[in-house]
């Protein structure tokens, strides 16, 4: 609990400190990290607590991003309409995909969620009216009203932070509710839960839909943040990246998605924008090969630290007397 309060205080103070120092770029960057944190956290619910290996989570993020963007492009700029619409659309999509996919098990579930995400990818690619494969550029971010201008990086940051904390709180409550206990039991042993007499399929579907809805919210925020959306948000590599964030941070840990998003995006940014002198001397073009580093880090984490960073921290804490 103490740690959570500390983390929240740091997150609250961060943009003010950055503004004082004149690094406004990092406020925007932190917003992006937090948006990905929401997406990764929603995937963590499915992956870590539900034990469902969904390889198509980008479909929900993408659907949310496109619904929100299309509404803005059509003149409905209010976030109060656009963002809930994105959430509802992604929840509906998750309901349809989940209802079909959850009939399969194991590897087949991985593949069918991937297949649905690919379908969405190609559908969006062919929407010529909304940019097709070139994507859709928005004139401005969504509008919040109440004199709050989302175009201001600080305002946007606090709105995203509020939504991230809300998502984490909801996840915390869901996991510790009766529903969450059942989900964890299903992850550990589905036939046994079925034998107790609980409707496993329905529980899994509800879990899948909640995660899809949260993914849609992240998508809507992402589109607003960059004022741009293209089909690559639905690409299967994006689903893989979200999975990496969850694993990196810690599967089934409350803060896993947040840590994973921060570490991965931070690492990317560090390698791409901050050349290290001695490394440049040794390997002049290393910045163009950032993925090599990401790949090696991921491989090492999967092979040697399957519980992720949050797992490592928890283990150290437990080891202390």
């Amino acid at each position, binding site marked *: 609990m103490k740690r959570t309060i500390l983390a929240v205080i740091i997150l609250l103070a961060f943009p003010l400190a950055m503004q004082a120092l004149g690094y406004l770029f990092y406020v925007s960057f932190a917003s992006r990290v937090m948006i990905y944190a929401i997406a990764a956290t929603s995937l963590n619910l499915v992956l870590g607590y539900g034990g469902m290996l969904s390889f198509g989570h980008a479909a929900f993020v993408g659907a949310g991003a496109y619904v929100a963007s299309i509404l803005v492009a059509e003149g409905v700029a209010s976030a109060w309409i656009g963002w809930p619409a994105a959430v509802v659309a992604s929840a509906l999509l998750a309901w349809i995909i989940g209802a079909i996919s959850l009939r399969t098990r194991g*590897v*087949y579930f991985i593949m069918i969620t991937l297949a649905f995400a690919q379908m969405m990818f190609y559908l969006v690619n062919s929407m010529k009216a909304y940019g097709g494969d070139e994507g859709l550029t928005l004139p401005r971010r969504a509008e919040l009203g109440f004199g709050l201008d989302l175009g201001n990086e600080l305002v946007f940051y606090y709105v995203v932070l509020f939504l991230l904390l809300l998502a984490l709180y909801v996840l915390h409550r869901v996991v510790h509710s009766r529903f969450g206990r059942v989900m964890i039991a299903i992850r550990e042993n589905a036939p046994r839960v079925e034998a107790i007499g609980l409707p496993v399929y329905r529980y899994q579907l509800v879990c899948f839909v909640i995660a899809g809805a949260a993914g849609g919210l992240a998508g809507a925020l992402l589109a607003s943040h960059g004022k741009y959306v293209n089909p690559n948000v639905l690409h299967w590599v994006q689903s893989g990246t979200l999975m990496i964030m969850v694993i990196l941070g810690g599967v089934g840990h409350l803060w896993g998605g947040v840590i994973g998003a921060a570490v991965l995006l931070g690492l990317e940014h560090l390698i791409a924008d901050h050349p290290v002198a001695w490394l440049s001397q040794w390997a002049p073009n290393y910045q163009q090969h950032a993925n090599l580093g990401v*790949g090696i880090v991921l*491989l090492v984490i999967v092979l040697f630290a399957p519980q992720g960073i949050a797992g490592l921290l928890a283990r150290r804490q437990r080891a202390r007397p």
Partner: protein
Amino acid sequence: MSWILILEQSLNGLQFGLMLFLLAAGLTLVFGIMDMINLAHGSLYMVGAFLASTFVQLTGSFVAGVLLAIPATALLGMLLEISVLRTLYARDHLSQVLATFALILIINELVRLVWGSDAALPLPAALSGPVELLPGLRYPVYRLVIIAVGLAVAVLLYFLVTRTRMGMLVRAGASNREMALAMGVDIKTLFTAVFGIGAALCALAGSMLAPLFAVQVGMGENILILAFVVIVIGGIGSIRGALVGAVLVGVVDTIGRAFLPILLGAFFQPRVASAAGPALASVMIYLIMAIVLYFRPQGLFPARG
């Protein structure tokens, strides 16, 4: 829309399907016997194509280049199996997906470091012309060669799996791994050998398709997804299923791309048809997969009884 056009597109579909089969065969064996999801299979396809382009330039001969690339890729594949993938067999699917996803990132960058972002593998001059199959149907020789090679490999694989001792062990492993282990099958060596064969087939497909598509970093990822669709439709672990699934996906995809826009044009306005046609064509194979999984969750030819 004449019958010649339909025939031509069907041949194109068959040709693409047979190359998909080469990828899917290796993938389905690894998947079926070792219960291992290997996303890096597409990377071997890419490495095979890059190696072939280098060897073709070195030797000056297309055939020699391809024949050199195949054992080289097989060797790399076996090295990969021994060094990394072997440790993943006992892990859950999530770890396998992520570790091999990491391998994709690593191998892509390594290829970029060694070769750059793309390489050239031109069509051999002797095979570049068309040939008249039927009166009015002129078809590229090279595509016919691909079909012939694909069919030959399919027959060879069928022979290997059903008529040899190694094939028997492979089938035993695919239908019941624990039992095969208990009967004293040297699973470790078998796995490495199967992986080598899978890598060799990747290299063959990669270098044969290279003159038609581009040799570039990332070429493995898109075709990998198609290969997964194929083996899920066909039934994981089944070579026969992989062949049927591959030809089905190849033909449906090619024919769909060629004729769906025209077909839709008959019912809708041209503007709608030209937008919806390609989309529907790309979605179609995934739709087939979803339908197959819905009605037959184990695929068309389940390997496990």
